[in-house]
């Protein structure tokens, strides 16, 4: 980030030139993994999303447009990150985007039921930019578990606007859009309260800041100074500790828990299911059965719509042929259009469309249920043996399908983590609970 800081205007023009008008506002969506960030993204942008390359980077970011009361803005979905201190590639991407692109607003999606952990990322982002909105998502789920989030207390503690949402049911999204519009128009000017580090670190940071050269306007001097300081492991530990300490004190003030009897049984049920899914004896058989079942449904189930599609499309080929003959079209034209283009299209559509239309919804269902994280957990040992990690089992699973083109699907590509396997700590989130 520091070696190659793109100027805000340049970077933005470069990013937008391929997809957008330069005067469109850019909203970045950040958050921990498993906070329902994608659901918020989908709810904001509808089904009009695209994947675009970020010039100079080898990553694709999902983006879409949102209507903010008559004005359109671009929403960029950043990869899920626990921290901006950037260890994994996903986290560097999120950090670099925030630093280099200087988005007009950053919506940080946090999980209501797991606020303390999620606040650590929020605290790091408000160090970078004041233009932050915290979206406390999955609020319905948290309320069911007896967890109440006081958004006003949270706003007071963080100094940035907070909205409570349940993106899957649409709750709070209008409020979120209004807040984003207010922030972009300058009607709302957040005054974030960043973490206060121990005095010696703050002093060192101030001294360092005064010696820094001119930085691009989107990059906070304090942030740069702190990142230079935390290359020292001892300082880094104290910085991370201060962040978590502050996150805990904020969460203590903003979150209240009402003990109730109903959720306990639910937690117990979920834990019981996990015991089976990851158990020594049943883990692998259940996994093989489930994944095998998905394969079977995809392969066998696709035959019927495939046959039907082929029948319809080839029937139409006969009509086309008749039409070409009736028009006395030359052979080369008939060959190119009907036997070449149309027949290829008909084969591709009838063979590939049905399996994809069956496989991806099933795959997404397993992902949403959290089963894919359990697969990674179960399979990690086998992958460790060949120097890989469990997340790659999903890449393999997708790649081994008869239609290898499937890997172009965004939800599949999200599992192609092989590039970021440089760190050996295999860390798989199995969903959070409180």
């Amino acid at each position, binding site marked *: 980030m520091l070696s190659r800081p793109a100027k805000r205007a340049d970077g933005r023009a470069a990013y937008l030139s391929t997809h957008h008008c330069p005067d469109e506002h850019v909203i970045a969506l950040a958050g921990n993994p498993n906070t329902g960030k994608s659901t918020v993204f989908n709810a904001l942008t509808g089904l009009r999303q695209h994947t675009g390359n970020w010039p100079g980077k080898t990553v694709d970011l999902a983006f879409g447009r949102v209507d903010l009361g008559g004005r359109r803005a671009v929403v960029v979905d950043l990869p899920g990150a*626990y921290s901006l201190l950037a260890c994994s590639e996903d986290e560097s991407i999120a950090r670099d985007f925030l630093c280099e692109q200087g988005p007009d607003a950053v919506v940080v999606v946090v999980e209501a039921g797991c606020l303390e952990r999620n606040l650590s990322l929020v605290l790091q982002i408000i160090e970078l930019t004041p233009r932050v909105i915290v979206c406390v998502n999955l609020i319905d789920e948290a309320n069911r578990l007896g967890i109440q989030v006081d958004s006003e207390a949270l706003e007071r503690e963080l100094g940035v606007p907070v909205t409570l949402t349940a993106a899957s049911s649409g709750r709070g999204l209008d409020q979120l859009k209004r807040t984003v519009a207010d922030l972009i128009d300058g009607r709302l000017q957040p005054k974030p309260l960043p973490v206060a580090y121990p005095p010696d670190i703050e002093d060192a940071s101030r001294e360092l800041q005064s010696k820094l050269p001119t930085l691009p306007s989107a990059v906070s001097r304090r942030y740069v100074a702190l990142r230079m300081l935390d290359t020292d492991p001892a300082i*880094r530990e104290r910085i*991370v500790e201060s962040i978590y300490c502050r996150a*805990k004190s904020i969460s203590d003030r903003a979150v209240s828990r009402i003990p109730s009897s109903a959720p306990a049984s639910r937690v117990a049920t979920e834990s019981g299911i996990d015991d089976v899914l990851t158990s020594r004896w049943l883990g*692998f058989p259940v996994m093989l059965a489930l994944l095998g079942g998905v394969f079977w449904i995809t392969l066998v189930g696709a035959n019927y719509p495939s046959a039907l599609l082929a029948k319809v499309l080839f029937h139409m080929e006969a009509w086309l042929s008749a039409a070409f003959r009736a028009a006395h079209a030359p052979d080369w034209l008939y060959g190119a259009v009907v036997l070449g283009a149309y027949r290829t299209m008909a084969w591709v559509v009838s063979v590939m469309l049905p399996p994809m239309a069956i496989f991806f919804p099933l795959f997404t269902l397993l992902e949403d249920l959290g089963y894919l994280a359990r697969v990674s957990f179960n399979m990690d040992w086998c992958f460790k043996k060949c120097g890989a990690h*469990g997340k790659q089992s999903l890449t393999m699973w997708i790649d081994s399908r008869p239609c290898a083109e499937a890997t172009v699907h965004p939800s599949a590509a999200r599992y192609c983590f092989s590039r970021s396997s440089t*760190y050996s700590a295999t*860390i798989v989130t*199995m969903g*959070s609970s409180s």
Partner: protein
Amino acid sequence: MESDSDREPKARPLTDLPLGQTGVIRSVNATGMVRNRLLDLGFLPGTEVSAVRRAPMGDPTAFRIRGAMLALRAQDSSLVTVTPVDGLQMDAETETGAKTC
């Protein structure tokens, strides 16, 4: 904190924490990327961590820490030391944890 070190026998690798048991992290002895990663995920001295379940082949193990469930391989969890907390000491430890956070 002082009373902790008097009372607790000694810190053991997180790998040895039996399933269902809770411990308080004493140190993170990893270096480089792994250390940073563990710190970022909240593996900080004074934090409570519980061993929840183990993968079918015995590794990795899922730990509950700061409200989330995270899986660590033995090679990484062996670099974190914890002092186990039993039922009676739990409340006292939680209090200490809150103070040092």
